């Protein structure tokens, strides 16, 4: 059974269907990619999964439980964490404090002490050199790592990464991709929205393609690349599409 399942989810903003009957799933221990042209509804789908937007239709299941009606923080406590495309760091706190805030949020289950979890994430993401700087003055590349580390200290089982490579240069992107792959190898489930297709092709084991709010293809990177509908979605070759 997949760890995260999105079944038949639709979202409406006013008269516009941002997401239409989208179905996808993501497993623990692997990176699942979610790609698609601008405005296809990727970030909206992320917001539905973590509870910031309510769908008009469809269910979200996590570890077999239906979590559609639960609040955002309850979902986080089940082990669902995310990063934001437009960074959401706590700008007036230091990098270390950013991690501490996240690590200190109480949970029902017993976990390692705050300091241990923070140290581990600092080590894993290499935050040492800028640990005591304020979060609103570090570079984008550093900030992306801090957001990842801040999610990791909550010990999530599934991480939603929203365009983590945007604003990074190519070596930073590569480093970030390696990091995600390593985390997945350690058992974390990752759902990755990314427009850097080469990164997605490299680290994902499965990819879903979203277009006009619908999932138009799902498969391995090779399958997706060969899919005519995907090529059409990206290149604008005439294809049936709603107005």
């Amino acid at each position, binding site marked *: 059974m997949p760890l995260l399942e999105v079944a038949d989810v639709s979202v409406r903003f006013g008269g516009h269907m941002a997401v239409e009957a989208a179905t996808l799933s993501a497993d623990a221990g692997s990176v699942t990619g979610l790609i698609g042209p601008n405005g296809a509804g990727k970030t909206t789908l992320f917001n539905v999964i973590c509870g*910031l937007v309510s769908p008009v239709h469809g269910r979200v299941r996590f570890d077999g439980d239906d979590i559609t009606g639960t609040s955002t*923080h309850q979902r986080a406590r089940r082990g669902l964490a995310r990063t*934001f495309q*437009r960074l959401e*760091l706590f700008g*007036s706190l230091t990098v270390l404090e950013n991690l501490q*805030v996240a690590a200190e949020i109480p949970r029902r289950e017993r976990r390692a002490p705050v300091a241990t979890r923070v140290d581990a994430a600092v080590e894993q993401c290499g935050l040492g050199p800028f640990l005591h700087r304020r979060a609103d003055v570090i570079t984008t590349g550093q900030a992306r790592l801090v957001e990842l580390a*801040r999610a990791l200290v909550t010990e999530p089982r599934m991480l939603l990464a929203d365009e983590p490579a945007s604003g990074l240069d190519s070596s930073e992107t590569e480093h970030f991709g390696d990091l995600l792959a390593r985390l997945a190898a350690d058992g974390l489930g990752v759902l990755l929205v990314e427009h850097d297709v080469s990164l997605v092709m490299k680290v994902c084991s499965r990819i879903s393609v979203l277009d006009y709010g619908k999932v138009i293809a799902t498969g391995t990177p090779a399958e997706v690349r060969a899919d005519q509908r995907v090529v059409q979605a990206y290149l604008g070759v005439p294809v049936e599409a709603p107005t």
Partner: protein
Amino acid sequence: MTELVEFTVLGLVLASVYAVAASGLVVTYTTSGIFNFAHGAIGMMSTFLFWQFTVGWDMHWALAMFIILVGIAPAFGWIVDRVIMRGLANTSEVTRIVVPIGLLFALLSLAPLIWRPTENRLVPPIFGRQLYDVLGINVTRHQLVVVAIAVVVALGLRFLLFKTRSGVAMRAVVDSRELTQLNGASPGRSSALSWALGSSLAALAGILIADQVGLEVLALTLLVINAYAAAVVGRLTSLPLTFLGAGILGLAQSYAVGFMPDTPAWLAERGIEASGALRTAIPVVMLFIVLLLVPHAPLRGGGIQRSREAAVRPDLRGSLIGFAVVIGVTVVLSGMLTEANLVAWGKGFAFALIMLSLVPLTGYGGQISLAQLSFAGIGAWAVATWGTNGSPLGLVAAIVAAAAVGAVIALPALRLRGIYLALATLAFAVFMERAVFTQQAVFGGSKPVSRPQFGPLELTSNRAFVIFMAVAFCAVGMGVVLLRRSRFGRRLQAMKDSPAACATLGMSLTTTKLMVFALSAAIAGLGGALLASLQRLASPANFDLLHALPILLLAVAGGVALVSGSLFGGFMLASFAIVPGWIPEGWEIAGFNARNSFSNLLLLLPAVLGVSLAHNPNGAAHEIGQQVRGVLARVRGATGEDEPDMVLPPRNVETLGVDRPLRDEDIAAVDTLLGLDEEVIGAAARSR
């Protein structure tokens, strides 16, 4: 039956005035994004002007109205927007709320300077008392005209907003500010226009109601606060719903006067006058209820927005030294001050404590409250009730009672943010003032308070008690400094920076807000209890809205994220009672009593400081701190540590080769250069 019609007519007249006032609020808010708390005060000033013109200078009422509604009021609104409100771009929600409140307070303090409150003034009904028979009851011509004017305002606004280009542009700004600009219209102009229009409507509402309310500064100003409920029915955006809200409110108030049963005897015997209290509180009760029905705003990640406000992490050693100095100075000075000045010194600490309650709530947590002085009032009541014979339990009761009420009132308000939260806390504050503190059973006019005694420690002398207050302030202040460095403090700061990120990390925003509201109310309660103990008297007069405004203004102006800011604010407020005393009694300047005039002028200071936040949103204490740090750094001969606390996004103003904004000539130049003239377009076409 006749009675019902009578009260319906009265209700409709009141509703008409509310509708005029509330539609002005809505027009200003939707277009400029600023909720004009000073709306009522603008109406009040205009009404006084109207009196001055018609009664004072014998002008015809129509001419006076024309000058005010078409000239002075709109000009004032326009200037306020261009000079003050436009500076609010990129500031925090708190600043955007406090600056108009500063303006409100400025006008409130200015009016009695110009029109001495001792004089009796009357505005006769402009349109006469001639009676007409409507549905079998007598209606004055004035009442009929007031209703007619509301209809004309509704139609006029409809025409303006839908049939003129400027009106269309005002609605376009609501849809999309950016797209409005891309169409070549200036949102700044629309916003100034909305302020001009709003001010004019406020003036009209004030003038129309003056014969009923009387020419009284506070009453006229507060009348428009009643209209807030109508504006919130329209969600601050819809004019038709606002008119509907005004109708409901006016009728409800009128029917309450006509048909609400008297307070049952068993309550009256206990000193509770329920029905009178309810009648006066209907507008704020309605405001509170309507606010609870406002739909939940979704949490959205907004990305990192660097606001102009700094967030300074307090320095532990510096704070300790500061507190030691405060206590030391108090111990030394208290031996030298006169009794009156000593009490004023003590009041400084009480006010500072109440302002300190805003530091964790607003400064750290980003929540706003206009009800802190009400919590202080609860503290004062609790210490008067349970602190008899010097029992220290009184102070404990004050803290607990205020915290409990704070939590209870926060519970429904938790889902509100920004301006809605401000309005909900304002509704609560006005409710407490009108319906609770006035009860015989609560303060009973005023209540004696005995000062607490801690075992053998006697605090009966003013000096001892003031030193005790200094210690209490420093202890709580130290607690607040430590709080910022604690887990909970980090959580608050995180919640302020990004609520969306907090929620996705598993933090319950509800719990966090509830805790900080309770904590903040507790601090304010302690402040109120100490104030009452110092005066040996708990009186509702200390805790009304008029006193609440300078507390908020000075707290934010002093620096709402800083303990030193509240000390600065508290002492500034307390000094207002002393400084005028330095002017010899009986001095006259241009026929005005110098001492009285000066003390009124001083009251303008918090207002000016509040308004100045539009230009320096970090507050005075931060500014002073920066200056001192700068001087110290220069003395040491080194630049200070790289402290990146206020970085404005760089905005290049290199336009057309000069460092200034575009002027019309520049635009004309670009027009020509870009080939808007046929010649160049033609040439380009040929070259293709």
